[in-house]
C-alpha cells in the first residue's frame, strides 16, 4: 500500500509542482538504484540548506539512494546538521527531542511491527556524534542491548557543528574547540568497541570516499537490521566549517583521515554473517548472469 502515497489522485497531476510530478514519475521507488545512476532519476533529497562542500550531505544523498525499500522506510534524527537535509527528503522523518533518537526508534519500530506483521518497515536513525555518543548515549546503548531491529547511522563530524563548534565525545584527543579551550582531554569514544560489546549484529566504519561502498554498506545494515538485530554505521562526515577545511579539499581530507584512522572496517556477528551470505547467494541466483557483472562492480 505504501506506494499509493505517491500515486496522484485522478486529475491532480497537472496541478502539482514540477518537483512532485518528477518524484511521482521518476522517483526512486520500487526499483533498486545504483550510485552510477545518480542524476538519471529524481532523488529523494534535492533542495536543502546544508553548507557548500559538506561531506555529510554527500553521505546522506548516497545513503538515501541505497535504502532497500524507500517506500517502507522511516528516518529518525535529532538536533544537528543532518536533519536540515533529512527533513527535506521525500521520506517520513521524525525530529524529536535532544538525544532521543534510539528510544523513539525503539517505540516506532515496535509499533510498526505490531501494525504491519507481514511487511518489513525499515527504521533508520541518522544523527550526529553528539546526538548519539553524548546526549543520546543511554538510549543508543540500551537499544543495542535490547536488540532492537533498526539501523543507527552516526554522522561523525567529530564536533558540534550546528551549535557552532564545540568539542564532542567523538572529537580527537587534543583538539582545541569551543568548550575544550585547552584541547580535548580524553580519547575519541570507542563506539565501535561498545557496539561489539553490546552485541550489535553488523558494524561498519566508513568514510564517504567511495560512494558505491557507502551504498552497499547502508543496504547491508538496513537488511540485516530487518532480519537479525541492531546495526551500526559510523561514518566520517567532516565539518568543513568548524575544522576549516577548504571546500575543494573536503574529499582530500576524507581520504587522508580514512588512510590515517578511519579505514573501512566491517564486523558481523555469526548470525548476521550467515544471514548475509544466504541473502547474497539468493540474490545472485535470482539475478542471473547478466546482472552478476553489475553486482561485482559494487564490491
Amino acid at each position: 500500500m505504501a506506494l499509493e502515497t505517491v500515486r496522484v489522485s485522478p486529475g491532480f497531476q497537472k496541478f502539482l509542482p514540477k518537483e512532485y510530478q518528477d518524484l511521482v514519475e521518476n522517483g526512486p521507488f520500487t526499483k533498486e538504484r545504483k550510485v552510477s545512476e545518480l542524476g538519471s532519476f529524481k532523488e529523494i533529497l534535492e533542495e536543502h540548506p546544508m553548507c557548500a562542500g559538506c561531506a555529510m550531505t554527500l553521505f546522506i544523498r548516497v545513503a538515501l539512494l541505497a535504502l532497500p525499500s524507500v517506500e517502507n522506510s522511516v528516518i529518525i534524527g535529532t538536533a544537528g546538521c543532518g536533519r536540515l537535509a533529512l527533513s527535506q527528503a521525500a521520506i517520513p522523518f521524525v525530529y524529536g527531542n535532544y538525544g532521543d533518537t534510539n528510544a523513539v526508534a525503539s517505540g516506532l519500530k515496535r509499533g510498526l511491527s505490531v501494525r504491519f506483521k507481514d511487511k518489513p518497515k525499515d527504521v533508520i536513525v541518522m544523527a550526529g556524534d553528539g546526538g548519539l555518543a553524548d546526549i543520546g548515549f543511554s538510549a543508543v546503548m540500551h537499544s543495542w542491548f535490547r536488540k532492537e531491529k533498526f539501523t543507527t547511522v552516526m554522522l561523525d563530524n567529530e564536533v558540534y557543528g550546528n551549535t557552532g563548534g564545540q568539542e564532542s565525545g567523538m572529537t580527537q584527543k587534543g583538539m582545541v574547540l569551543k568548550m575544550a579551550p585547552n584541547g580535548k582531554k580524553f580519547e575519541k569514544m570507542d563506539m565501535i568497541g561498545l557496539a561489539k560489546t553490546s552485541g550489535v549484529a553488523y558494524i561498519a566504519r566508513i568514510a564517504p570516499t567511495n560512494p558505491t561502498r557507502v551504498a552497499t554498506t547502508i543496504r547491508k545494515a538496513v537488511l540485516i537490521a530487518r532480519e537479525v538485530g541492531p546495526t551500526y554505521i559510523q561514518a566520517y562526515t567532516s565539518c568543513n566549517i568548524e575544522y576549516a577545511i577548504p571546500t575543494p579539499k573536503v574529499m582530500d581530507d576524507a581520504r587522508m583521515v580514512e588512510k590515517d584512522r578511519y579505514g573501512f572496517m566491517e564486523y558481523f556477528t555469526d548470525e548476521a554473517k550467515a544471514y548475509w551470505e544466504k541473502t547474497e547467494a539468493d540474490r545472485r541466483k535470482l539475478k542471473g548472469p547478466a546482472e552478476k557483472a553489475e553486482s561485482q562492480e559494487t564490491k
Partner: protein
Amino acid sequence: MNQTQEPAYRVVTGPEGLLPPAAAIMGIHLPEDGEGLVEGRIVPEEKAMEAAAIAMLTRKNPTLFPGPLMLWGWNDHTIEKSAPFFDVANEIPGVRIIPMPDYRPIYPKIDPEAVINPCHPNLTIWHNKIEACIFIGVHCHFANITLKMIRAGTNCYTIALCAEAGHEDAMASVPNFTAEKLKNFAETLRRVKKNGVKPLYEGQGIIPSGWAQIAGLTGANMVKPAEEMVEAGFSHDLEKGLDENEE
C-alpha cells in the same frame, strides 16, 4: 454540541492583528454532523455551504487548496472525491487551484503561485491576492495552524471542508465532508448562481497553479490576480516575498 450561550467572539475575515486567539479558546464549539459553522455560529449544513458558495463566487481570486489527503490517491475515498472536487472547481469561474502537497518547511523558499505551505501560508495568500479560499484534504492540525495565520494577516475568507470534526478558525466550515457532501456543494454553487448571485469572474475557467511559470513556458497570457488586496498591516516589504534563509 449545543452551545448554551452564544459566544461573543466572531470568526470574521482579517487582518485580525499580530496573533489572533484560537477560536476554540474563545468559546467557539465544533458543529455536529449535519451542521456547519459560519463566522463562529453553528448553523444548518446547507447554510454553511451557501455562505461558502457565495464567498467563493463573489470575492477576489477564489482559490482551492487541496491538501495531501485530496491530492494523493492513497485510498478509495480520495479517488472517489476527485471527480466532485473538479465539479466544484468548474462551478467557480476564475478559480485557482494551488495544492498543499506536504507540510515540511520548504527550502529555500516557496513558489507562491505553485504551492501553499502551512509554515507560511500567508505568502501564497498575499502573492495571489486571494480573498476567498477552501481548504480540503489537509490534516486538521495543519489546517488549524494555517487558518489562524491567514486570519491574522490577510483579508481572506477561509472555508474548511473537513473530513473529520470541522474547524472553528475558518469563516465557514462543514464537518464529516464526504464525496457526497462535495457533490452537494457543487449543487449549492449552481443553486446560488441560479438564485441571482453573479460570479465575479463570469466566463473564466480554472486557472492552473504555477500560472506565471506556465505562461513563461508557453507564451500564453498570464492570468494575474485581481488587485486591491487590503493592506495586511505588517512592517515587512511583502512584494518581493520573505527570504526564508534570512537569519
